[in-house]
């Protein structure tokens, strides 16, 4: 009769397992056939081990958060790893006491209540459990503080909560203090506590603790556990287990598709809302604080994502770089845009009626050059590219010299996937027909889409910074070093988008003194001109740009170099120093 | 609306109109579509106002329709007009009274041309002499016949048997006046009130007790536009313009329309039938259409002439509701009797417009 208090816990746990079983079962069942095959093929390979290691490192130890913010990392770690150990050690304790691991699930949870007698290693285990409890409680204490004042964690904003989240969170906050009090009450009555529980028990003895009070405390502990378990699948704490599932699937090579599918859903539910992405988002500069990835994922879960939030993102990818769970935040957002706009894709019927002429050079061309819309707005870059190609004696075709269709990336960014495919087909045909082995592009926006979506077969796609470096290395052009100091801005699409960081720097080092910026390479700031954002107003863009420029120009360089016509156009209206594309710098430095 | 200020503006331009002794230049359209209008005009001038007006059997069309449809050369037309002046000169007259607004525009234009290019006048004199052995003087005064009625509107008002008042309510009738484009839009100084505010018809209406409706499309063309009507494929354009006017005046519930140009009167009348047949719309409250009168017919009604003698039965939109409002007695049986009292064939009934 007096053991009924285990019911809330037990029912809660059963509910949790049933729900998780159904949810995960459905998600995995809904993965594509190929993805399922991938899982089966990889399950007995090293990948599983890697996934286990990462699960421990990230899911339990929260290494990535630790790296970014030790205090926040400690908080996450103490809760996750501490609790995990509490369960593991609890089971060992049960084993030591009963001689078997096949105990009822509530035995390790309420061990102190059930076992008042001595068993081998009892003192060590009790004190170890007390230590773990203290470890967790320190994390809980930090969590209280974080709610009250997130700033001490170096976080500017914290996430807002829904009722289920609140319930689960409050339950979570109570679980461990209640466990402490319940165990202490038992210790006060039966003297079976460790160093922590005994200390609290000494206080309890002062107020004459009774078995009824003990019972109430164990009930409360059980209820808070039960509430937490019931609330968990409907709250952000769902991430605790989903994250592990995601880590495994990721290791098995499952990739995010353009369409929002079951894997996307797993990613969405893997977000722990640690808030690291909020911190790195440049939108704060413009006082925009409702559109960061964590909110978007939350909105996707709650199905209340508005267009304004969905489209108000530069898609710079900085949040993706810091996400401890490595969620594909950009692609998730784009998949939402695809979903939101799928009813009104254009068919570009006019492309069919355009004269289909692929320019030729007579000889076998080495390169086909695609300038793209943005390069046509920066004639300096276009002229420089042509100058370098001529100087190096490259036999090339200028694909869109007079007229050209857009590459499709801007459409892609807006979610117009079907429409973009039409443009891709149109351009793809021209590129393939040219017979050139290399596609040269001078705009990272185009570069990204050519690499990811064009399926150009044997043709290698090169950004001009890569190609020019090759020309230098092959001795087809030589560069003269000047004494001007240069700071390089990594365009989002080229750097984080295509992992090209070093070639532009190599080239720049040959033409001048390259200065480093405080935030560069993977953490480089966005210029604010991004086509990824549809709703950001011009004044807000200007504010963000000013902040980026402040970082870039800290060391007073002579030249601000970039490798993207859009970045150049964006910066040029905000600074007094020279803003040059790498193509222009190379063209000027040619001997 | 400040009507006083409005009236002041509308009467601010006046022109000189001869007092007596006119050479009458008839109108092709008027005598065909409103066969009693010109007779009524002559009757009013001769019987009511005791004026001398010469109705010459020798005069011809001015060829204005041919001119505006690009099939008669301008030199030819000038010679035809010169012949009319010769007939006037031969009749010992100096003032022309022109029944048609397009003719009025043609005469005015030609005189203006001769004024600026005297060599052209000499050439035309030569042409006319070669062709007919006639010679001519430039008329002293050119007036449209509506100008003459306007000039004597107060005399007519004195003799009026009926006023433009709804006898059932005692309220003045709402009258839409429409001025032909060629009356004053080409030579504003040649029209009473100029181009923007021609007063020639509104003056008559107000003198005879009616209320002039000022509606937004008051100055818009009736839709005739010669070329637009003469080519069947273009008629949609013509009827659309009329529709625009009718739609604009409809909210004012006009009791009738009066026009000084025979073409305008014809089109605003006949197109109401066409629009009713094509689109099922009428522009009055009860489905009869808005009656369209020439100013001669209006003057005739005011002077108490028999509506059937005025030829009102020849209109598309029937005039009986208007006659009832004016309190004019008429014999419905006599409507389609000819001048000898024989029954004429009855017109077909339109499918939409009530008769």
């Amino acid at each position: 009769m007096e053991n009924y208090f285990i019911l809330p816990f037990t029912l809660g746990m059963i509910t949790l397992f049933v729900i998780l079983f159904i949810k995960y079962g459905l998600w995995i069942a809904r993965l594509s056939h190929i993805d399922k095959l991938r899982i089966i093929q990889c399950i007995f390979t090293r990948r599983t081990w890697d996934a286990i290691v990462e699960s421990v490192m990230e899911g339990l130890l929260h290494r990535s958060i630790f790296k970014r913010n030790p205090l926040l990392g400690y908080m996450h770690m103490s809760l996750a790893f501490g609790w995990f150990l509490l369960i593991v050690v609890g089971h060992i304790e049960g084993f030591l006491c009963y001689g078997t691991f096949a105990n009822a699930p509530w035995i390790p949870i309420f061990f102190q209540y059930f076992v008042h007698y001595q068993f081998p290693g009892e003192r060590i285990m009790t004190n170890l459990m007390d230590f773990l409890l203290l470890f967790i409680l320190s994390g809980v204490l930090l969590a209280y503080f974080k709610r009250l004042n997130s700033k001490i964690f170096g976080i500017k904003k914290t996430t807002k909560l829904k009722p289920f989240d609140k319930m689960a969170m409050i339950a979570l906050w109570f679980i461990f203090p209640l466990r402490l009090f319940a165990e202490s009450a038992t210790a006060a009555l039966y003297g079976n506590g460790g160093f922590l529980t005994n200390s609290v028990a000494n206080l309890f003895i002062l107020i004459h603790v009774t078995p009824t009070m003990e019972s109430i405390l164990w009930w409360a502990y059980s209820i808070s556990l039960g509430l937490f378990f019931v609330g968990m699948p409907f709250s952000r704490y769902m991430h605790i287990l989903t994250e592990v599932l995601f880590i495994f699937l990721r290791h098995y090579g499952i990739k995010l598709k353009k369409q929002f599918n079951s894997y996307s859903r797993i990613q969405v539910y893997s977000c722990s809302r640690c808030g690291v992405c909020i911190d790195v988002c440049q939108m704060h500069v413009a006082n925009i604080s409702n559109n960061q990835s964590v909110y978007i994922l939350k909105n996707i879960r709650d199905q209340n994502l508005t267009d304004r939030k969905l489209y108000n993102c530069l898609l710079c990818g900085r949040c993706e770089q810091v996400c401890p769970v490595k969620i594909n935040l950009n692609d998730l957002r784009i998949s939402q845009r695809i979903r939101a706009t799928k009813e009104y894709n254009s068919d570009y019927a006019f492309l069919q009626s355009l004269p289909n002429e692929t320019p030729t050079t007579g000889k076998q061309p080495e390169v086909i050059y695609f300038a793209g819309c943005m390069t046509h707005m920066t004639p300096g870059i276009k002229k420089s590219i042509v100058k370098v190609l001529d100087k190096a004696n490259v036999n090339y075709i200028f694909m869109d010299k007079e007229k050209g269709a857009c590459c499709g990336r801007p459409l892609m960014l807006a979610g117009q996937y079907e429409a973009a495919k039409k443009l891709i087909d149109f351009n793809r045909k021209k590129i393939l027909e040219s017979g050139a082995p290399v596609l040269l592009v001078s705009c990272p926006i185009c570069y990204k889409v050519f690499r990811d979506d064009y399926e150009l077969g044997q043709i290698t796609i090169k950004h001009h910074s890569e190609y020019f470096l090759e020309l230098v290395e092959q001795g087809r052009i030589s560069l003269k070093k000047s004494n001007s100091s240069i700071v390089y801005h990594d365009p989002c699409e080229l750097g984080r988008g295509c992992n090209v960081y070093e070639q532009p720097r190599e080239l720049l080092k040959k033409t001048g003194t390259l200065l480093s910026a405080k935030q560069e390479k993977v953490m480089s700031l966005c210029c604010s001109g991004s086509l990824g954002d549809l709703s950001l107003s011009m004044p807000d863009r200007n504010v963000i740009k000013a902040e980026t420029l402040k970082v870039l120009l800290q060391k007073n360089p002579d030249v601000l170099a970039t490798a993207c016509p859009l970045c150049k156009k964006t910066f040029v209206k905000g600074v007094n120093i020279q803003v040059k594309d790498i193509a222009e710098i190379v063209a000027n430095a040619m001997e | 609306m400040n009507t006083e200020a409005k009236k002041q503006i509308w009467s601010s331009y006046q022109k000189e109109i001869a007092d007596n002794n006119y050479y009458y230049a008839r109108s092709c359209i008027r005598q065909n579509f409103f066969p009693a209008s010109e007779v009524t005009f002559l009757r009013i001038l001769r019987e009511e106002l005791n004026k001398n007006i010469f109705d010459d059997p020798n005069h011809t069309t001015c060829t204005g329709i041919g001119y505006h449809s690009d099939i008669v050369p301008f030199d030819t037309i000038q010679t035809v007009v010169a012949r009319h002046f010769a007939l006037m000169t031969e009749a010992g007259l100096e003032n022309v009274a022109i029944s048609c607004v397009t003719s009025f525009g043609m005469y005015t234009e030609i005189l203006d041309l001769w004024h600026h290019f005297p060599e052209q006048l000499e050439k035309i004199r030569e042409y006319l002499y070669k062709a007919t052995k006639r010679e001519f003087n430039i008329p002293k005064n050119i007036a449209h016949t509506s100008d003459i009625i306007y000039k004597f509107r107060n005399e007519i008002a004195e003799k009026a048997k009926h006023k433009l008042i709804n006898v059932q309510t005692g309220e003045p009738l709402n009258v839409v006046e429409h001025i032909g484009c060629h009356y004053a839009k080409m030579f504003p100084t040649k029209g009473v009130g100029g181009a923007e505010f021609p007063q020639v018809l509104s003056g008559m209406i107000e003198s005879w007790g009616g209320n002039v409706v000022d509606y937004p499309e008051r100055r818009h063309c009736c839709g005739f536009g010669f070329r637009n009507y003469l080519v069947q494929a273009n008629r949609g354009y013509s009827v659309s313009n009329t529709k625009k006017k009718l739609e604009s005046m409809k909210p004012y519930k006009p009791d009738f329309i009066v026009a000084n140009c025979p073409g305008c009167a014809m089109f605003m009348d006949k197109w109401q039938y066409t629009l009713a047949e094509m689109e099922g719309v009428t522009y009055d409250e009860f489905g009869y259409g808005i009656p369209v009168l020439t100013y001669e017919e209006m003057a005739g009604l005011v002077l108490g002439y028999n509506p059937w003698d005025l030829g009102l039965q020849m209109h598309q939109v029937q005039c009986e509701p208007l006659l009832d409002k004016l309190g004019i007695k008429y014999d419905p049986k006599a409507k389609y009797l000819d001048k000898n009292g024989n029954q004429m064939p009855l017109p077909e009934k339109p499918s939409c417009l009530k008769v």
Partner: protein
Amino acid sequence: MIDVLIIGGGIAGIETACSLQDLGYETVIVEKERTIGGHLNNWDTLFPTHRPASEVLEYYTEETRKRALTIYLNTYVTSIIKLDDGTFEVNTSRDVIFHSKTVVIASGYSLFNAERKEEYGYKIYDNVLTSADLEKKLKTLNGEFKTPTDKVPEKIAFIHCVGSRDEKSGNHYCSKLCCVTAVKQAIHMKQICPQADIFCCYMDLRMYGPGFEEMYREAQEKYHIQFIRGRLSEVGENADGTLQLKVEDTLAARPSKIKVDMLVLMVGMESPQSTALFKETCGLQCAPNRFIQPNDHHIGSNKTNIDGLFTAGTSIGPMSIFDTINHAKASAITIKNYLSRN
């Protein structure tokens, strides 16, 4: 013998007097109305800040009082005669003859009489106002704004260039301030009648001054005022008393008709009749636009063809308050140079 006689007690005249007093000269102002301040008395708010016109007026009233400026009110000049000794004899309606070393014409402007554009229906249709009428209405506004026919307006149109840039009005020149005034008034109307649709029909928008373009943009973006590029051709009255405007939307290249409850005509500035009188009595040279011809457009805009006769403010052409005050200050310095040389 007074140093400077100033004709006109508007802001140009008062500012000239103040500046001259600071430079140590004795001035007399002659004003035809019974108060000083000129047109500013009838104005509600000023562009581009929407500040009450009364603030500026109060400033000058206070200055006048503090400085004890000599002003003859209800007095108008009947002739200016330049004497052989280079001084001036100025006759007035009051049988007072002034003798002064110099004269400043600060007689300002008069508003274009919108009745001259008959087709716009001013004084014919009740709901046609001029920009000046609207200012008066706003100045005395008590409670809800209603049109002259007592309706809360749902649609209002502002017509730019009434009597300006119009050969038919006899004025080829641009009055310069009507554009920005229209934008200011449109914003004001939108603020007090938020439900109203507001149109501005313009030929060109000349937002030349500081803050003007910004205000125009605000009018578009924040107040959703619709700018239609096209000049009003004709106004008709609908059966329900609303006005029907015919304007070509020249950007769409299509005629348009707009039904409005109230029409505001942005009347331009004209040279006042007195200028013609001065021209007659002392041979003052006027420009083809009938305003006084400055002796030199660039470096002598306060001078006239007559030595000792100066101008301040809009007597030489349309000017904003900002420009007028500067021109008046410049006038004072020009006069100082003249007086100290002679």
